[in-house]
């Protein structure tokens, strides 16, 4: 073998990982957690990830009375012999050694190589074999540390279950998410609805260093529609939105108030009162009644509703805040939902910008829930119909949620539609792409449903814990995760990848834009024509 030998397997176990003693000539400083190495067993090769690097001494006395290392001769002799470097590695995959096993590809690890199996740096060919080439379902997401190999993400698998993108502010979550979305759109693996709380995905991303990058609309023009809650803000940013979203009072149901209880500071009694009002005035008319006729109600009316006067007053006062949301109107001139469904069902992608409401929790929760619930109902109906033999299944719909902890916190996760979607997984062909900086703020059950995770640097202990919850080899990966660089590095793991891997994510730049080419229509069908027939044959 021409590869550089790193050392020998000297101990360990499948569950705790293997220990490798580095050869004297190998510099321990060249090793890094997150790197891949290959262990050459008797019959197969094992791909293993470095999870820890340590120093060992053959003689404990050496630590107490260090030799005369000021003499380079002594130091050189001792290095690698009396003292040596150790790697802790986690075997991840076995690659069949004989020709018969090759077509089966890499297999999960069920055993470990024997003592004194040799360790080598993973070669380009090994990594290519594991991560596969870029093709109709895979996109290049980056390269492993110190390697030129491309790591591909299986977008079909990514879309079929929910995904999480986590990382501190400024670690490149948004660009990573844009890469994923662009990949999903280009390969036609899912229809996307992006709840764009910070107005990043539609037309243009503005990063903190004044760098600007293209949003999805610029990349895929007619394939992507920009909906907005705040037309003014969109126009100021030079976008002419495809649709301005308004929500009518009639679209808001008592369940939505339950979700808003925290944001609006409603007591449980007030929430009960909302349900009582809905029973009396109808699910679609209670809010209109409350906002328009609520004031000045006599105690008798309230008594008949079984609502205490104090509770009622508090409720009216708190819901006054809804009046200040201009997109909330008595009756929407053009209801947003049919429009949105028409786009999504025809395989086009929608970015919903929040404009100036980017910091308004009430707006986030209200709009995301109201829309997602209806869309989910529609998808569910179509799926059920399709299973009963009526019509075709809808394309997979991926809902992208920024600031996901607001919608998926343990307090509300059980009630929001997103909690339901995450738990149902792909049953009704709707999955989530959760983007957040505080995974610990997200309900544990939801976290466990995120089959693919893309983790940028996290530094709080709780966030690391939450981000890796339910992942095999969590203890080892934790070291890897907390040692990521603060930009453009991510630990990718889960359903869409054969093994966890640390990558330097690819640049979201001109080269990436060029590599995209025309988008495929989600759910099959030819790509959209670049030019219309009128343009081709002008009269």
């Amino acid at each position, binding site marked *: 073998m021409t590869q550089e030998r790193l050392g020998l397997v000297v101990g360990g176990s499948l569950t705790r990982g293997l220990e490798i003693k580095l050869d004297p000539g190998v510099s321990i400083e060249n090793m890094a957690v997150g790197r891949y190495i290959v262990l050459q067993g008797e019959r197969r090769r094992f791909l293993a990830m470095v999870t820890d690097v340590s120093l060992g001494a*053959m003689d404990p006395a050496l630590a107490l009375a260090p030799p005369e290392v000021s003499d380079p001769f*002594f130091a050189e*002799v001792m290095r690698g*012999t009396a003292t040596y470097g150790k790697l802790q590695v986690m075997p991840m995959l076995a690659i069949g050694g004989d020709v018969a096993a090759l077509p089966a590809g890499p297999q999960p690890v069920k055993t470990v190589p024997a003592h004194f199996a040799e360790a080598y740096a993973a070669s380009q060919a090994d990594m290519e074999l594991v991560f596969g080439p870029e093709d109709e379902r895979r996109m290049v997401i980056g390269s492993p540390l110190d390697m030129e190999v491309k790591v591909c993400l299986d977008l079909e698998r990514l879309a079929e279950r929910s995904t999480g993108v986590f990382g501190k502010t400024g670690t490149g979550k948004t660009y990573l998410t844009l890469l994923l979305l662009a990949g999903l759109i280009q390969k036609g693996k899912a229809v996307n609805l992006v709840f764009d709380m910070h107005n990043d995905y539609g037309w243009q991303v503005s990063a903190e260093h004044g760098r600007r990058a293209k949003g999805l609309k610029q990349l895929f023009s007619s394939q992507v529609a920009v909906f907005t809650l705040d037309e003014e803000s969109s126009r100021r940013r030079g976008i002419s939105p495809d649709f301005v979203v308004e929500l009518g009072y009639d679209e808001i149901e008592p369940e939505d108030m339950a979700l808003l209880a925290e944001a609006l500071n409603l007591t449980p009694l007030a929430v009960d009162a909302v349900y009582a009002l809905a029973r009396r005035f109808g699910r679609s008319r209670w809010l209109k009644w409350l906002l328009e006729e609520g004031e000045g109600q006599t105690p008798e009316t309230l008594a008949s509703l079984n609502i205490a006067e104090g509770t009622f007053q508090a409720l009216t006062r708190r819901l006054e805040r809804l009046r200040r949301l201009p997109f909330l109107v008595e009756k929407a001139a053009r209801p947003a939902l049919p429009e949105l469904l028409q786009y999504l069902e025809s395989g086009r992608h929608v970015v919903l910008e929040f404009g100036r409401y980017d910091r308004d929790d009430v707006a986030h929760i209200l709009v995301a829930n109201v829309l997602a619930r209806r869309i989910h109902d529609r998808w569910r109906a179509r799926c059920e119909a399709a299973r009963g033999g009526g019509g075709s299944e809808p394309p997979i719909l991926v809902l992208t949620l920024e600031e996901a902890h607001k919608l998926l916190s343990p307090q509300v996760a059980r009630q929001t539609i997103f909690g339901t979607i995450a738990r149902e997984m792909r049953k009704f062909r709707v999955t989530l792409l959760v983007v957040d900086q505080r995974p610990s703020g997200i309900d544990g059950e939801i976290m466990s449903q995120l089959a693919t995770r893309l983790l940028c640097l996290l530094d709080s202990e709780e966030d690391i814990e939450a981000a890796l919850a339910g992942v095999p080899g969590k203890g080892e990966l934790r070291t890897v995760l907390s040692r990521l660089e603060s930009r453009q590095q991510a630990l990718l793991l889960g359903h869409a990848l054969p093994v966890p891997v640390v990558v330097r994510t690819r640049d979201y730049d001109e080269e990436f834009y060029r590599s995209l080419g025309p988008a495929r229509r989600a759910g099959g069908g030819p790509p959209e024509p670049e030019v219309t027939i009128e343009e081709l044959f002008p009269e």
Partner: protein
Amino acid sequence: MALGTARPSPIGEVVAAETARFTAECYEVHCPPPLGSLVRAGEALGVVFRAETAGLEPGRVPIARGRGYAREEDVYRENPQLAKLLRTTFESLAVGSWDGQGLAIPRLPPAPPRLHGFVYLCPPEAVRAFTASWDFLDRLLAGPLGEASDQALAACLRAASATHPDSRAFLVAAGKELAPRLRGDLPRLTALLRGMRP
């Protein structure tokens, strides 16, 4: 390995031999081969680890004769019989054997060398070839004299290093071989390394 085809002149003669070591008497008094030299006697290859000069007859102990002389040489000039009454012997630890075709194997010879067999100093190319593998280290580390054998080993390695193209690299490699063999005995390792330091 080639042990030299030209016929070099012997430096001494075997006067006592056993499986693991042999003693030879030098033809010249006070001229034993340097500590750590690789020597050959019959089939046996040995590393010199001890040398001794003493009176020929056990009953006649050497006594001081230099009072009044200005220089050491004067003692021998004035007492020419001394060279005939003293003898120098050196002891070698058997570390390998010569197969007769000019190759060395790191294994003790099947039989100790014959008494009165000639002892030759191995030429540099033979030393280089023999020290290309490290098996002889174990024999020397188990030498009968403890610290003194270790010093012979250090001297042997230092001398051998001169026959290798990169003598420093040779010594470092030898040190790296010794380190695991002497684990748990750091002072001994340090002393050895100090003795062989380039």
